[in-house]
């Protein structure tokens, strides 16, 4: 799998983290450059630096972080060949299927390889992943990717229609994961591939409920038991630094000042208008006068508001005594993933009836391992 040495070496696949939304893999190739809106970088400058380094572009346009790939980072960075599996599902499936260091696992199909990378990491060199992909070009890309990532000894990739042709191994897998449009067609083959000397497990990954109902039925008929179904998601929370909520006292005092200001202004205007009227007493039509004065007053009232006056569309939160205190509040992000797939699980129990003709009444036996 990906190298574990501390420094970046030529030929390593590294993860270039630019922003949360811009994370991409890079094959370190001396002589090549990496260019992005966050700067220009020579691959050769990255060789020998510790993984996890922040690298600044000398032209000052920005910086990048050079990270060691993990299946989780790879999932954020990988070129999507199909809809991919995400952390919550992968993690939960791995646990439920009891996939551990040394496990032998089957997956179909390979897809974008998101699950494959995570499982290969977990089972390690003592375990093995048998991955099947129906689509030839996709299988080829995945195969090259696995080689580039040093996973060829852990993963065996087969271009194969498992629904029709079954799996290439028999009686040896600890766990089977089916990410297929019609998993029920592969359930029988999966049973053959699972080892019979101990408890083994299966998972069908299906986005639609109708697929679940058919898969459950097929699993039950094939003799799988403890059938159960889960959904799991991650709710991402975002943290916001916000001003401490204002006290009503601030609002009241602001509103009072505002009222006083307006009243004073009005009285000034009346006084002005009175003075004018007295001065212009030779003009006989006060109505006209008033009509002339009116727009002025209106403009004045509307246009020369003190800065404290609020736009009625924007509640006036600011005050003279500006509230400097802030709080860190969080909430779930506005738009989140609402569904990925239903996870249908089942177990295959090595009950002696499987191998004996009289299971129902047979006494206690001990399986030898």
């Amino acid at each position, binding site marked *: 799998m990906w190298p574990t040495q501390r420094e970046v070496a030529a030929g390593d696949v590294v993860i270039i983290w630019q922003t949360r939304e811009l994370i991409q893999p890079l094959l370190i190739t001396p002589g090549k450059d990496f260019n992005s809106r966050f700067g220009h970088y020579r691959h050769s400058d990255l060789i020998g630096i510790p993984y996890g380094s922040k690298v600044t572009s000398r032209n000052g346009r920005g910086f990048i972080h050079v990270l060691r790939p993990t299946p989780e980072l790879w999932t954020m960075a990988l*070129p999507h060949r199909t*809809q991919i599996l995400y952390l919550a599902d992968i993690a939960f499936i791995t646990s439920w299927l009891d996939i551990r260091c040394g496990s032998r696992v089957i997956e179909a199909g390979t897809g974008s390889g998101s699950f494959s990378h995570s499982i290969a990491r977990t089972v390690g060199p003592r375990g093995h992943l048998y991955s099947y992909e129906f689509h030839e070009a996709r299988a080829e890309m995945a195969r090259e990717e696995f080689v580039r990532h040093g996973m060829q000894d852990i993963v065996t990739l087969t271009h194969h229609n498992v629904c029709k042709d079954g799996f290439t191994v028999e009686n040896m897998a600890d766990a089977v994961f089916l990410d297929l449009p019609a998993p029920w067609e592969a359930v029988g083959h999966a049973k053959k591939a699972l080892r019979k000397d101990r408890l083994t497990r299966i998972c069908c990954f299906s986005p639609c409920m109708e697929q679940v109902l058919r898969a459950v039925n097929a699993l039950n008929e094939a003799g799988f038991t403890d059938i159960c179904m889960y959904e799991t998601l991650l709710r991402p929370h975002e943290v916001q630094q916000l001003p401490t*909520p204002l006290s009503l006292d601030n609002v009241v005092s602001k*509103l009072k000042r505002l*009222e006083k200001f307006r*009243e004073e202004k009005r009285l000034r205007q009346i006084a002005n208008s009175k003075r004018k009227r007295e001065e212009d007493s030779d003009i006989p039509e006060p109505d006209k006068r008033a009509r002339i004065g009116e727009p002025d007053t209106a403009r004045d009232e509307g246009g020369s508001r003190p800065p404290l006056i*609020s736009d*009625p569309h924007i509640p006036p939160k600011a005050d003279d005594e500006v509230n400097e205190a802030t709080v860190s509040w969080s*909430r779930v992000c506005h738009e989140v993933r*609402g569904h990925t797939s239903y996870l249908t699980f089942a177990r295959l129990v090595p009950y002696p009836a499987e191998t004996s003709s009289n299971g129902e009444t047979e006494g206690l036996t001990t399986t030898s391992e």
Partner: protein
Amino acid sequence: MDNGSDAGNAHHLCRNSTIQHGHTVLLKLPNGEVRSIKVEKDSTLSLGRVGSFFANELIGQPYGLSYEIHDRKLKRLPPLAMQDIAETDATNELINDGDFVQPLSVAEIEDMKKSGFHASEIIKTQIEQHANYSLKTEYSKEKYKQRKEAKYSKRFEIIEPTMYEVCDYWFRKDHHRIRDIRTDTLSQMLNLANVRPGGKYIIVDEASGLVVSAVLDRLGGECRIISINDSDSPPAYPVLNLMNYDKKGLAKVLSTLNWSTAQEDHVPVHAPLDPTPGCIYSERQRARLDKRKVASDAVMKTRSELFAGGFDGLLVASEYDSFQIVEVLSPYLAGSAPIVVQNQFLQPLTGLHAQMRQIPRYLAPSITEGWLRRYQVLPGRTHPTMNTSGSGGFLLHAIKVCVANIPSVV
């Protein structure tokens, strides 16, 4: 029966069932986008790519129907049966997750180049992406076809402005301005506040008028609302515009105070409201004085009404210190009246809860978070929507009780 004609009735603020001149209506476009548009007599309404038509075509039409534009004329369409409907998630799903049905984008090619892929690999991927399309299931093909169709259809639907639709529209359009109040949360607020015909409510609405509109719509105006705001001007309740209420009818059921005039010890700084003896006033000045007096009298009347108390519920959706709000306004609630406080963050309600439960006047403060899930129910393809809203806001509710000790003995 609901009809726009009796909107002026003091006891009824009925929802309009037909579109009238001057109404703002919501239209759903073929791509699922909802747009608000003002229907002015004799004008031309443009829906962008969908086309244009004469506003008069819509006037008098009932809400809730679908049309197609033909030469600026509308043709009424039958509603879509399930088999004619594209995936709920079509747009999102294909953009976010289903890139595989599209050839490689320029950005993707750039990314591949940057990742050190050879040109040959990129070309191979391109071919694969196309091959992929032909390999896709019937299901995916149909989706792709439908999305294309949605792009070019001239169909649109007039949405009936129910409280549910109006809330949903604003939540999609600008959830910040309605403080993240989602349809489920708004519905719960109305039920928790025991909103019922004939009730009197105090509402603090900094959610663009959504809460006020919801109570008015639910009760068809058979209620009395005092809303408290933080400004010296009447509150701007843009959500209320979609209700197309008659202004006079509205004024009879909804009055507003601000945090200053809502204080019992508030002393208005106002000038004498009657003309000063000996002064000569122009007609305009006199009209202004009259208007001031009417406004001032209205405030005084609303103040008296508030301070007389006996309100049936308090609904709060505000940015200010919510404990202060509850403390200032709960004295005007009748015994057993519900208090419902909304916030888009949990933390302020946690604090409010900690403060309220120290005070015997507030019975059983409880905090809840709404959870809502929508499903696509197309034949054979039933599943929850792939994307959803993360949060629809939090509620704290409690019951105002009387602290006076009433003893009883058997």
